[in-house]
């Protein structure tokens, strides 16, 4: 009888053989972004053209390749170059009518008018760990994941390591939670492993609710098995036998691909009972969110899986001790789990060498807003904001000047030009009045009014407040009202003082992270852009020309 490890090796050999036989690989991005630009039609056109001309190539749909602003993106890996990503040709803005040219170019020169240079800082400055397979494998095929070395870390851990050794390895890597708060992952795992009680649960928080964040979506759509492998490893480490992936219903494609991944993993015996012939068992189920931002908070998320309204409860007890149905529960975010297989495969020392002293590894960011190259990037911790925005992102559009970058979503803040040289790590961003957050990074230029932006986030928090605690429920509504009056040019200094006092009160007394951090966008814009607030209050003028103070005042006078 062949063991599962041998089976994985056979599959790897088979996939490599098939790829050799098929010739060149043409990868078409069919992640949600490019798909919205009709990359599925491009894929069909390329397939038909290849069939018609009998070209020796395989056309495949793959996950996000990163440079979304150049979408739909297509890459061409020649059979000879094997798996060297840098050698692959990259094309942007590909339409169906380009199919004949692309197929004809396989053996010759690249199609210059569509080519994107691999030498762009956008590509050369990145370090890919979590995204190493994204855009290179078919996310709906477990075989392709296995062929990249997938599920080997799991088999190695199950056969050669004790659960305690797995926890130890994660602790040594220095990995911190990628959901935003940055709690040391190894410490969390050790706590759940230590707590007595059965059953234990593992949960994957895939309720990526921060507006402006699409990292988790891209990982789930581009490389779902990596997340599953990370979760199975976590379950082994803490002794869990049941797991849930709490996924936003707003991401139908991620739901579909994750469902396929779970089915295929079960079929292979990588999920279910007696995984790989060991005594380890794990059942995984998807639970769909229903559009509530607060469910990203872990206790609210647990309430939602239990079928209740997603309202948080005070901690302690932490989920590690009393979580889902009162049982010890490990809850990590998508990107955290996605970091686990490479850490176990390449060792904690390798991982700890990436990043800074206190923030190890890489971080995936979703770069969007008023920046030239938007998309998904992965950089080592400690890179400066300036490098990310101006080197990788290419800076703001011509004729405009950079004003601020927003990180951490509604819980984060706006960082001004003067602080762009701070390194991107958990502690530096917190010091600057923002947070790392889950990785949304939205660039704003001179056309954005910072008071209006603060008001936008407050409106978001107000409408997403679950209503359980008064500081958040009533406080966000009052702060929204005050911010509205400021943008209308009808507020006085007294109201600004009241706003500041409310910010402090809501931050200090709210029950969960949503309310505690809701004042951050206001406080950070007040810290760096107070002159904009004062212009609205004293001069009844919006420096960015966004708020129509005069019209609002006239309206009030009537």
């Amino acid at each position, binding site marked *: 009888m062949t063991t599962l490890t041998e089976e994985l090796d056979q599959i790897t050999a088979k996939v490599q053989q098939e790829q050799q036989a098929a010739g060149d690989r043409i990868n078409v991005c069919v992640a949600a972004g490019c798909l919205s630009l009709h990359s599925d039609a491009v894929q069909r056109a390329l397939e038909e053209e290849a069939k018609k001309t009998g070209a020796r190539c395989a056309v495949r749909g793959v996950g996000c390749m990163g440079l979304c602003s150049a979408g739909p993106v297509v890459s061409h890996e020649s059979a000879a170059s094997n798996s060297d990503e840098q050698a692959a040709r990259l094309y942007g803005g590909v339409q169906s009518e380009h199919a004949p040219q692309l197929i004809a170019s396989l053996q010759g020169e690249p199609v210059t008018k569509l080519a994107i240079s691999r030498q762009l800082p956008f590509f050369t400055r990145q370090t890919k760990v979590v995204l190493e397979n994204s855009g290179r494998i078919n996310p709906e095929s477990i075989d392709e994941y296995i062929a990249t070395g997938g599920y080997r870390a799991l088999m190695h851990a199950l056969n050669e390591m004790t659960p305690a050794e797995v926890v130890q390895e994660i602790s040594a890597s220095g990995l911190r939670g990628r959901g935003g708060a940055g709690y040391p992952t190894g410490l969390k795992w050790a706590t759940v492993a230590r707590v007595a009680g059965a059953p234990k649960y593992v949960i994957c928080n895939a309720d990526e609710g921060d507006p402006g964040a699409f990292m988790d979506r891209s990982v789930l759509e581009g490389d779902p098995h990596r997340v599953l492998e990370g979760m199975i490893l976590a379950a082994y480490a803490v002794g869990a036998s049941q797991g849930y992936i709490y996924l936003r219903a707003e991401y139908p494609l991620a739901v579909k691909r994750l469902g396929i991944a779970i089915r295929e993993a079960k079929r292979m015996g990588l999920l279910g009972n007696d995984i790989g012939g060991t005594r380890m068992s794990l059942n995984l189920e998807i639970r769909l969110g229903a559009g509530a931002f607060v469910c990203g908070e872990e206790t609210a998320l647990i309430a939602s899986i239990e*079928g209740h309204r997603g309202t948080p409860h005070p901690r302690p007890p932490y989920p590690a001790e009393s979580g889902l149905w009162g049982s010890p529960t490990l809850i990590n975010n998508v990107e955290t789990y996605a970091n686990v297989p490479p850490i176990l495969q390449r060792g904690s020392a390798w991982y700890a060498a990436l990043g800074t002293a206190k923030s190890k590894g890489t971080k995936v960011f979703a770069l969007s807003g008023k920046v030239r190259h938007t998309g998904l990037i992965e950089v080592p911790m400690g890179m400066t904001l300036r490098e990310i925005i101006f080197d990788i992102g290419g800076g703001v559009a011509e004729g405009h000047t950079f004003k601020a970058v927003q990180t951490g979503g509604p819980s984060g803040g706006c960082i001004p030009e003067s602080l762009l040289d701070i390194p991107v790590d958990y502690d530096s961003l917190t010091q600057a009045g923002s947070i790392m957050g889950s990785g949304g990074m939205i660039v704003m230029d001179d056309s954005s009014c910072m008071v209006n932006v603060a008001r936008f986030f407050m409106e978001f928090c107000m409408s997403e407040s679950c209503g359980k605690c008064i500081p958040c429920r009533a406080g966000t509504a009052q702060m929204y009202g005050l911010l509205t009056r400021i943008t209308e040019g009808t507020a006085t200094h007294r109201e600004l003082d009241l706003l500041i006092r409310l910010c402090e009160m809501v931050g200090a007394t709210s029950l969960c992270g949503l309310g505690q951090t809701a004042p951050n966008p206001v406080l950070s814009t007040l810290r760096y852009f107070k002159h904009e607030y004062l212009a609205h209050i004293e001069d009844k003028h919006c420096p960015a020309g966004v708020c129509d103070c005069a019209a609002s005042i006239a309206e009030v006078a009537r």
Partner: protein
Amino acid sequence: MMATLTRPQLPSTDKRWMIVQGTMRKHGYSRNALIETLHTVQQSFGFLDKDAIRFVAASLQIPPSQAYGVATFYHLFQLRPPGRHTCQICLGTACYINGAERLMGHAEKQLGIQAGETTPDGEVSLLAVRCVGSCSFAPVSIFDEQIHSYSKVEALDAQLKAWTQP
């Protein structure tokens, strides 16, 4: 005397109720299947009406108040029938700073309704969504199931006219 476990009768002979029942059966009529079941109702019928909520609550032995509380808590659940067409405009951060508010204002004016409402003739529902994760193509709008990147007022206008004019 033990409570008898009689499940309520299906509200009508509509076959879609069988699908709803299937979801509950799959979860062993567990109370924590409430949200999953409401998802199925909405997928099958397009929205949750009071009969549906009552039926699901009774089947899962949950107080109707609790089921109603869950149905109204989550933004995705609709308690009114949707229009024939749905226009969703993303108001996430990236879309917002790229002018999504203008798009929404235009749609509201054009349709004569507020976000979250359906035109009186039942043709178009207008919804504000909070980030669909396509921030690179902001502002984004979704006409029925189709995502439109880099939305412009003109394109929005054309789509709304196509839907509302015979």
